[in-house]
């Protein structure tokens, strides 16, 4: 019986971790361009030409 006090929280915790990471990927726009992402993995170098040094504002409004 005592095993349950470890195993059940571990099992549910892992599920929650997966759920939380899915929510994070959804919120940070990683599903905006699924086809493009599949192609970009083949590019060399960084993911896109960010011309300036400072980080650009994330593009707004083109969520799918």
């Amino acid at each position: 019986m005592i095993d349950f006090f470890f195993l059940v929280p571990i099992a549910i915790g892992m599920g929650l971790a997966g759920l939380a990471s899915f929510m994070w990927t959804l919120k940070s726009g990683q599903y905006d361009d699924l086809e493009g992402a599949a192609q970009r993995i083949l590019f060399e170098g960084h993911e896109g030409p960010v011309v300036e040094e400072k980080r650009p504002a994330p593009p707004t409004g083109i969520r799918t």
Partner: protein
Amino acid sequence: MSCCAPGAECLADAGTSNEELLLASRTLRDGLRQTDLSVPGIHCGACLQRIEAALGRLDGVAFARANLSTRRVSVQWHGGRPPPLIAALKQIGYQAHLHDAAADRSDPELTRLLLALAVAGFASSNIMLLSASVWSGAEAQTRDLFHWISAAIALPTLAYSGQVFFRSASRSLRHGRTNMDVPISIGVLLAFALSLYETTQHGRHAYFDASVSLLFFLLIGRTLDHVMRARARQAVAGLARLSARGALVARPDGTQIYLPVDEIEPDMTILLAAGERVPVDCRVVKGRSELDRSLVSGESAPQLAVEGTALQAGTLNLTAPLTVVATAAAKNSFLADMVRMMEAAEAGRSAYRRIADRAARLYAPVVHATALLAFIGWMMATGDAHRAITIAIAVLIITCPCALGLAVPMVHVVATRRLFEAGIMIKDGSALERLTNVDAVVLDKTGTLTAGRPRLTLVVETRTEARALAAAIAAHSRHPYSQALAALGEAQTPVALDAVAEVPGAGLEARSGETIYRLGRPDWAAAPLSVPPNAAVVLSANGACLAAFRLDDQLRSGAQEAIAALTAAGLSIEILSGDSEARVSDIAGRLGVRFTANARPADKVARIAALRQTGAKVLMVGDGLNDAPALTAADVSMAPASAADIGRNAADLVFLREDLQAVPRAVAVARQAARLVRQNFGLAIAYNVVAIPVAVLGQVTPLMAAVAMSASSLVVIANALRLGERRWRPPAAVRAGLTPPLTPGLVP
């Protein structure tokens, strides 16, 4: 270049000015602005790299990111003037146009569905894990513990993910109706309540897994359905905007300013360049040009515009710059009239009831009555209230409309996907059902049956030199007639000419030695008597007619086959056009179809209303501004990608490829989908017929419920996937060549 939206470029190549870019961009923070462009030509990873590299090189561009799924580019830039984004893209071979900011909102509904789905997925997998232990023999305290943990997971899940169904169910109950979400909500909530009660009583049977995995399955269907429709809508929103966004206004003090359409008022003077669309209703005060009214009235032949000519909003100025004075504000223009007519047509149309809702109206009372009877029966037989309630709820759980709830959405998802692959975008789920019942098709002529590009043929066969000469002169102009003529002479050797000048509104004048050639309007180019009566363009040497050309509407590719396929499918077909009698009867004769010519927008609506009065279900296919009210008035409507914005928005389906066979194909897919939906309902009913007696006899265990529900859902999904398995082929009559032979003058 662009592989999508064919036909839209040729006449709509109006170009986008800097002012328009500035107007459509939005400010992010201190001087940084973002512009979203639609680039239909993006089709691979290399496109992304080329576009991002080319835009990144421009001065002022801080960030450029191309999106392959939506075929869009978003660019962030500094400074008061936008960088030459569109020119830079054109240079590397991509047509780009501004993306409509209004159509650009993110999709909160999808995010909500995805989050609900993720939560339900997490909960159902964890509860299933615990349930599997219970089924495999966990006893006493362990079983109770697992049930309690399951309840703790299920409660927040129902509260969060279940909202999608509960909201819709309560909305429909408040209006005194039932939809499929009502039995779903009742089943899920009662299963949870019963399980919670059993858990407190240390009972053996809890249905937490059933209640949560039901939500999970149904949410998968909902989400896929939403994703497919959002993709279709996005593809339509990405098409080039054909109405003017603004216009260059000359102020009394001599300065010029670019104003958005909404701010243009009557009596303002507007400078209208060649290739621009008329922003509001106005009158010409200076200049002489020709106008393409095909989107406004359906007339395919260009019209002459001189001082005093009244122009309707949406007309395209073809050849020369015009100075015009606005006679109405945008809200009172022709376009606004069309919007009012559309609203009137919309109000006159009764709301369509989805097939799933109609099924739910039959299904819910039957199931709920069965549960009630089971309760009464067991009460009378045993007098054990707890047992009677348990069995009644078990009936509701086992009959929970999992398969029924998936029966329609899964078929629609697969059908939408099949149509999407064929370049047909369906914007509304119920459109597919409405398309199934269609028995009459009404087609617009200009831009729908015809390709929208004029084609010129010789009235009388002339020497090839005359044709080559005409082609050589025509190559100097961008007028659609000239371009059509220039295309005729592509194979011939070029002819040397000394000087060529364009006379706006009349034609082209060329000099070669002593001879003056004129190519253009018959009354301008040659002596009236020497010209054949139906000539649209004449080539003359010193006033003597050398060759005469007549305008030939070129059928859209696949028009013959489409008409044949629609006829074979048992649909009645007619043409309803705003063009002149002669032109429409020519096309109708070639296709062997009834027609009505000179139809104004109100006539089109009236004709469709009359057809519907006789009980026919009407499919309207049209592209112009003048078709928009008719598109709304019909039971279901379709528009090509080259249609006016308002028509595209009014239509339920938009086809992106040139081929008119999209129409019969959409009807065929809709009919096949309807057949599969009926089969799915049959499967769901068959399942219930088997399951209900078992439940009524009190023999159901949670394990059985889980297996039965999953199995029935999988069967329904597998059946839906059969849609469009074999590739679509035209009906046998078309393949066997039983259609009328192609007219000789037609390019197949």
